[in-house]
């Protein structure tokens, strides 16, 4: 039997792994490439629901969803990645020609529309009541009190595989091309790159990773309801990569673990149940303060992106600049 605090920590780390995956996905399209995606939750939700629909059994008497294939979990995970990719492709096809803030708001609007569909199309999702008692991987093969650790290890294994894969892609010509597009799209286009095709591919890769994260999220919660897929997931993911260091995969993972652990450590200070509501609100205020402090004194994140050293461009980039291109021109004091 593991001590209680260790179990609590394991649970925190498991959730942090999910957010690390979402952050990696977002970091790939927003940090490596320069897409300002405010709808990463769309891919996440698509993955989670695809996984749920593929793996869940037939409905009970209280439920109204029609599908429910009861397939093995690994097929569900592949389906989740596929669904994430597909949604990324569709949204990308429609909106990738938009720039920055316009892309930001379009992806955000898509996320809202998708959530409304998940809420209202009850034949597909069982609506707001959602699906519950979702199966977790390898659950029956291990003892109950050992299982939380097993689940954590499974998720960490997925995280490691995704991390290595994304790192390799980032360092390859494809990743370099994305960097180049982020830095100066016009110049890159002049050099013979087709920005749209690169962007679409990076969004689809992000979609696949976020889709897998969606499946992991179902494992953590064992319940899936549309209420889970609000834009706060997107905001958390953005916060994580900005705090961790935009463009740096290690920073994205570290940011996710820092954020979730900080939140859960703050959970432990329950002063008194008579003022629990007030304390819960104050805890959010503390998170806000920490976020502001990190950005003020560590604006490039805890682990800033390591920029490849091209001798000449190095001199052109100011030392404290965040990613070039995100730097505001002409607002210096």
């Amino acid at each position, binding site marked *: 039997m593991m*001590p*209680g*605090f260790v*179990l*609590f*920590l394991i*649970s*925190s780390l498991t*959730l942090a792994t999910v957010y690390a995956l979402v952050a990696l996905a977002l970091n790939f399209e927003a940090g490596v490439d320069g897409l300002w995606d405010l709808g990463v939750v769309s891919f996440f939700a698509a993955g989670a629901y695809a996984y749920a629909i593929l793996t869940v059994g037939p409905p009970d008497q*209280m*439920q109204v969803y029609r599908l429910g294939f009861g397939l093995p979990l690994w097929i569900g995970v592949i389906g989740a990645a596929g669904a994430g990719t597909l949604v990324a492709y569709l949204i990308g096809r429609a909106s990738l020609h938009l720039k920055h803030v316009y892309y930001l708001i379009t992806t955000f609007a898509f996320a809202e529309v998708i959530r409304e569909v998940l*809420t*209202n199309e009850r034949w597909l999702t069982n*609506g*707001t*009541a*959602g699906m*519950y*008692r979702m199966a977790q991987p390898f659950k029956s093969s291990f003892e*109950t*009190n050992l299982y939380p650790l097993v689940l954590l290890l499974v998720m960490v294994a997925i995280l490691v595989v995704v991390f290595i894969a994304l790192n390799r892609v980032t360092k390859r010509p494809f990743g370099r091309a994305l960097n180049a597009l982020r830095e100066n799209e016009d110049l890159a286009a002049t050099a013979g790159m087709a920005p749209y095709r690169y962007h679409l591919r990076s969004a689809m890769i992000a979609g696949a990773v976020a889709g897998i994260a969606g499946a992991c*999220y179902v494992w*953590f*919660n*064992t*319940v899936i*309801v549309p*209420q*889970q897929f609000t834009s706060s997931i997107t905001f958390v993911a953005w916060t994580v990569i900005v705090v961790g260091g935009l463009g740096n995969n290690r920073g994205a993972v570290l940011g996710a673990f*820092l954020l979730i*652990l*900080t*939140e*859960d*450590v*703050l*959970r*432990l*200070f*329950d*002063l*008194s*149940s*008579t003022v*629990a*509501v007030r*304390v*819960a*609100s104050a*805890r*959010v205020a503390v998170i806000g303060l920490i976020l502001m402090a990190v950005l003020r*004194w*560590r604006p490039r994140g*805890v682990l800033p992106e390591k920029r490849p050293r091209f001798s000449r461009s190095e001199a052109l980039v100011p030392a404290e600049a965040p990613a070039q291109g995100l730097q505001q021109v002409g607002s210096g004091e």
Partner: protein
Amino acid sequence: MGKRRLLAVALAAFLVVGLALAAGCGGSETATTQASTASTAETVGSTDTTAVEAASGQTIPIGVELGFTGDMAPWAEPIANAAVVAVEEINAAGGVLGRPLELFTGDDESGVEGGVRAAQKLVNVNKVVSIVGPESNPIMALLDFAKENQVPIISTSAGTSGLDKVGGQGNFIYRTNASDSFIGVSEAWIAKNELGANEVIVIMESTEGATSAGESFMRNFEAIGGTITDKVTVNPGQAKYSSELKAVYDQNPSFVYMSASQPVAIAILKERYEKGYGGQIMGSSEIQTPETVEGAGPEAAAGLLTTRIVELTDSQGWDRFVKLYSDRWGEPPSPGYYQSNTYDAVVLAALAMEAAGEASGAAIDQYLTDVSRGTGSDSVKVWGFEEGKAELANGNSINFEGSSGPCDFNEYGNISGAANAVMQVDESGEWIVLKTILTSELPAG
């Protein structure tokens, strides 16, 4: 570079300190660390009579998990206050098995993820013997968790019909509020036979709780021969529902059933008053609060109907709770906030431990159903913890009659009311009882 290292060190230090503190909380069963941590010194359990603590230093931790932030936050504060009332009453009566209860809180952020995280903290760090309070979405995520950890989870506000058949002894899942399936039966019956509605338009907010209640009403209303002429779904979070209400009232309904949370209900009532729409309007039970009336204004809320579950003959339990709660918090409780359900849940858990002679989750699960409904015809009815404890000490079997109703758990850990009161807001903005209907008069659900 030095600055960077400094920050890394600071962050690491922050985490380490946090973890150390956490470990301190985790080990708080030992009497020595307990006094030193802020969390225990401040809690209600230890503010009470020193005699109890002298008897036995170890407290029994119990958890209350609620949406202290998020959509459920309006309910969380009154519910937590009710749990405090119960714990203080129990401790004043000498505690459970001579040990005071200690209340820990967990914020489920009104959602599933927060529900899991809060439960992990309560069970693993605070070592609670039972969790009281989680709403529909959070508790559905904890069905297996409760059983695996042998910690009974007692919801006091979850209406979801998903809980109808999954709980009960051995499954560690209970709820002291009535299921939407049950409420739907009585609401539909009351609407049709007491209030004379044959054709009803339903307004339903697209949230889990409201949908569940609304669907149940529609199903049951049609089952007893009524007609649902239209169903209008509204989204939460809007300031106005002008077009939605126009779509409803263009059809001139004589009766509207509204399944919506407090802010939405307020907006709908205001709109209805402003536009002078007529006909009767009935709401789901959780809007039965003074805040609904205050929010909409007494003029706009006047005439609003709801139902609530009450005791069969008198309201001894409710009156008793009103006094306890008012004495502690300076304002009366209201049925819509599930405060009485929460009070009952805590007292039931305490009585179950008393009956078992053991302070553990397994013991609560084993005895909870028994103390809630008695084990035979010779069971003694009790309304409070002290009474129940005394009867148990005398070797009697007890049947706890709650402040929210009889609180008799069935084999699935659900309760059903003995009687329903039809409530209405009068001209001055007060909730009054129009009529009380026995559940036995209702058709089987």
